[in-house]
C-alpha cells in the first residue's frame, strides 16, 4: 500500500504528462510523442490508484478487461470515414462514466459503513453538476452518433444494425427508467411523484430518439422546461442526498435536455457540436473530481474542457456564427433568398473526357473536398487522380481544406491523410485564397456552402460573412456533385452557374474514376 503522499506526487506527474500531451498534440512534429506521453500519464495514475489502498480487484479486473477489449477493438477497426461517429461515441462514454462515478460516490457517502466519502455541501453540489453535465454529454453524444451514423432523424429506411441500435437503445432507456422507478416506488411507497417524473423523462428520451424529424413543435419550450426541471431537481438532490431515486430523475431530465439540444443541430454545424460535447466530457470529469476530492481529475478534466472550447471557437469562427446562434438559431433560406431556377439558368454540364482535356493543359490544379467526398469514400481516387496529373503532365497539385468541411473538426484532413496525401500538399483556406487566381483548374468534390460566393457578395444571405474558399476566382472551376440540391444552409449557389464553372453531375467516386480513365487515354 502506497502512502497518500506518494500517490499525490504520482498524480502531479500524471497531470504534467497530460499538459505535455496537449501541448505536443498541437504541433505536427511532436503529436505522436504527445499522445504517448499522455497514455503513460494515464498508466501511472491508474497504477498508483490500484496500489493506493486495500482494494478488492475482482470487479476492477472484470471492468478493465471488458472496457479495454471494447475500446481496443473499436479503435483498431474503425474506418477513417467513420471517425466522427467514433469520436462522438467516445465522448458519450466519458459523460456516462462521470454520471456513474458521481452516483456511486453519493450512494457510498450515504452508507453508514463507508468512511472514505462524506456528503459535504461541495460533494453534493458537484454530484449534481456531474449528473447533469454527464447526462447531457451522454445522451447528446448518442444523438450526434446517431445522426452521423444516419439512424437518427436522417434516413427513413435503415439497415438491420441501425434498427437494432436505434430501437434497442430507446427500449433500454424506457424500460430501464420505468423498471427502476417502479422498484423504488414499491420499496418505499412515498416517492410517487419522483417515480412518475423518472418514467416521463425515460419515455421522452426514448420516444424523441425514435422521432423521424429533427425538429418538432414545442421543442424550444421543452428545452427550457427540461433545463429548469433539471436545475430544480439539482437543488432537491442537494437537500435530500439520501434519496437514490432523486439522482436518477435528475439524470433522466439532464438526458432529455441533452437529446433536445443536439437533435435539431445537423449538417455543417456538426463539427461545432462534436467539439462542444468534447468540452462537456472534460467538464463532467472535472465535476467528478470535486465529488471525490481528487486533483488529477480536476486538472485533466479542465484541460479537456479548455481544448474543447478552443476547438468550438475555431469552428464557430470558420462559419462566422456565434455559439448561441449554432445552438439556438435556425439555418435556412430567408425571404431574400433568390429562386434556385433563376440562379441555375446558365448551368453548364460537362463530362469526364472534357475534364481530362482541361487537366492536360493545366499547370496548377487544386482539389477542394467536402462532406460529399466522405460520403462516397472518394479520397483514394482523388489522390490517384492527383498523383496521375503530377506524373503524367507535371501539374502542380494541391488540396485545400475549409475548417468546417465535413462533420467534425479536421475531418477532411484525416481522410486525405488516410489516402496518403502528402502533408505539404494540404493547404489551409487563407493560403489557397491568396494564390487562387493563378489556379488553372479547381475541382470541388462534395462541398457546397463553404465555396458559395454569396457569403462574400450578399450581406443578407444566411451565410453572409462566412469565410469561404474563393474557387470562383480560379480560371476554371469544376464542381462534382450529384445534383443541384442545396447544402446545409438551404440556399442556391451561384457558383454553379458562373461562366468559368462546369458541373459534373455524378457520385464523387464514380466521377473520379471516369476522369482517371479519360486522363489515361489523353
Amino acid at each position, binding site marked *: 500500500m502506497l502512502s497518500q503522499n506518494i500517490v499525490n506526487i504520482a498524480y502531479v506527474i500524471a497531470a504534467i504528462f*497530460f499538459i505535455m*500531451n*496537449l*501541448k505536443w*498534440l498541437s504541433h*505536427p512534429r511532436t*503529436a*505522436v510523442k504527445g499522445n504517448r506521453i*499522455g497514455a503513460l500519464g*494515464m498508466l501511472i495514475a*491508474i497504477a498508483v490508484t490500484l496500489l493506493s489502498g486495500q482494494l*478488492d480487484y475482482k*470487479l476492477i479486473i472484470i*471492468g478493465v478487461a471488458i*472496457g*479495454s477489449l471494447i*475500446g481496443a477493438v473499436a479503435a483498431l477497426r474503425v474506418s477513417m470515414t467513420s*471517425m466522427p461517429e467514433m*469520436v462522438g461515441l*467516445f465522448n458519450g*462514454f*466519458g459523460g456516462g462514466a462521470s454520471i*456513474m*462515478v458521481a452516483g*456511486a*460516490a453519493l450512494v*457510498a457517502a450515504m452508507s453508514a*459503513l*463507508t468512511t472514505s466519502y462524506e456528503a459535504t455541501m*461541495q460533494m453534493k453540489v458537484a454530484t449534481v453538476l456531474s449528473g447533469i453535465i454527464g447526462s447531457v454529454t451522454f445522451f447528446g453524444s448518442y444523438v450526434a452518433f446517431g445522426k452521423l451514423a444516419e439512424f437518427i432523424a436522417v434516413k427513413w429506411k435503415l439497415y438491420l444494425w441501425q434498427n437494432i441500435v436505434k430501437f434497442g437503445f430507446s427500449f433500454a432507456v424506457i424500460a430501464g427508467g420505468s423498471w427502476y422507478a417502479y422498484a423504488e416506488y414499491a420499496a418505499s411507497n412515498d416517492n410517487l411523484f419522483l417515480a412518475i417524473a423518472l418514467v416521463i423523462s425515460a419515455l421522452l428520451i426514448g420516444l424523441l430518439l425514435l422521432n423521424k424529424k429533427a425538429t418538432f413543435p414545442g421543442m424550444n419550450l421543452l428545452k427550457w422546461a427540461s433545463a429548469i426541471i433539471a436545475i430544480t431537481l439539482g437543488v432537491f438532490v442537494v437537500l435530500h442526498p439520501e434519496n*437514490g431515486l432523486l439522482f436518477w430523475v435528475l439524470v433522466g431530465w439532464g438526458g432529455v435536455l441533452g437529446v433536445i439540444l443536439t437533435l435539431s443541430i445537423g449538417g455543417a454545424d456538426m463539427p461545432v457540436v462534436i467539439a462542444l460535447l*468534447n468540452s462537456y466530457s*472534460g467538464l463532467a*470529469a*472535472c465535476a*467528478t473530481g*470535486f465529488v471525490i*476530492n481528487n*486533483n488529477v*481529475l*480536476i486538472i*485533466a478534466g479542465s*484541460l*479537456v*474542457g*479548455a*481544448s*474543447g*472550447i*478552443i*476547438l468550438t471557437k*475555431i469552428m464557430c469562427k470558420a462559419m462566422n456564427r456565434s455559439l448561441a446562434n449554432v445552438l439556438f438559431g435556425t439555418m435556412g433560406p430567408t425571404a431574400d433568398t433568390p429562386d434556385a431556377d433563376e440562379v441555375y439558368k446558365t448551368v453548364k454540364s460537362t463530362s469526364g473526357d472534357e475534364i481530362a482535356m482541361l487537366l492536360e493543359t493545366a499547370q496548377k490544379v487544386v482539389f477542394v473536398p467536402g462532406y460529399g467526398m466522405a460520403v462516397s469514400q472518394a479520397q483514394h481516387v482523388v489522390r490517384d487522380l492527383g498523383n496521375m496529373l503530377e506524373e503524367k503532365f507535371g501539374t502542380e497539385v494541391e488540396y485545400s481544406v475549409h*475548417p468546417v468541411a465535413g462533420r*467534425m*473538426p*479536421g475531418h477532411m*484532413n484525416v481522410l486525405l491523410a488516410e489516402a496518403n496525401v502528402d*502533408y505539404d500538399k*494540404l493547404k*489551409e483556406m487563407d493560403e489557397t485564397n491568396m494564390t487562387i487566381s493563378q489556379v488553372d483548374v479547381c475541382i470541388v468534390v462534395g462541398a457546397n456552402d463553404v465555396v458559395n460566393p454569396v457569403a462574400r457578395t450578399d450581406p443578407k444571405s444566411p451565410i453572409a460573412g462566412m469565410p469561404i474558399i474563393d474557387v470562383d476566382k480560379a480560371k476554371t472551376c469544376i464542381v462534382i456533385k450529384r445534383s443541384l440540391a442545396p447544402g446545409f444552409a438551404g440556399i442556391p449557389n451561384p457558383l454553379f452557374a458562373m461562366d468559368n464553372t462546369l458541373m459534373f453531375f455524378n457520385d464523387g467516386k464514380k466521377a473520379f474514376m471516369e476522369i482517371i480513365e479519360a486522363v489515361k487515354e489523353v
Partner: protein
Amino acid sequence: MDSLVMLLTVFVLAIFVGFEVITKVPPTLHTPLMSGSNAISGITVIGALLLAGQMENPQLARMMALVAVIFATINVVGGFLVTDRMLKMFKKK
C-alpha cells in the same frame, strides 16, 4: 486552506493552462486533438477504480462503479489507440 478553495484554485489554474498550452492548432490536428483529449477525459477511471475496489462500499455503489470502470476504460484505451493510429497516418511520409 479549505479543501474546496484549494480544489477551486487548481481548477481555475488548470483551465488557464489549457487555454495557454493549446494556442494554435493546425487543422490537420483538430481530430487527433479531440480524440486524444477525449482519452484524457477518461481520467474518471481513477474514481471508478476506487469506488469499485473499496470493500466497505455498498454493493449498489460498487456495481455502478463497475459500469463506470467499463465506460472510462473504453474511453482511455480506445481514445489513445485511435489517436495513435491517426497520427501515424499523418507521419508516415
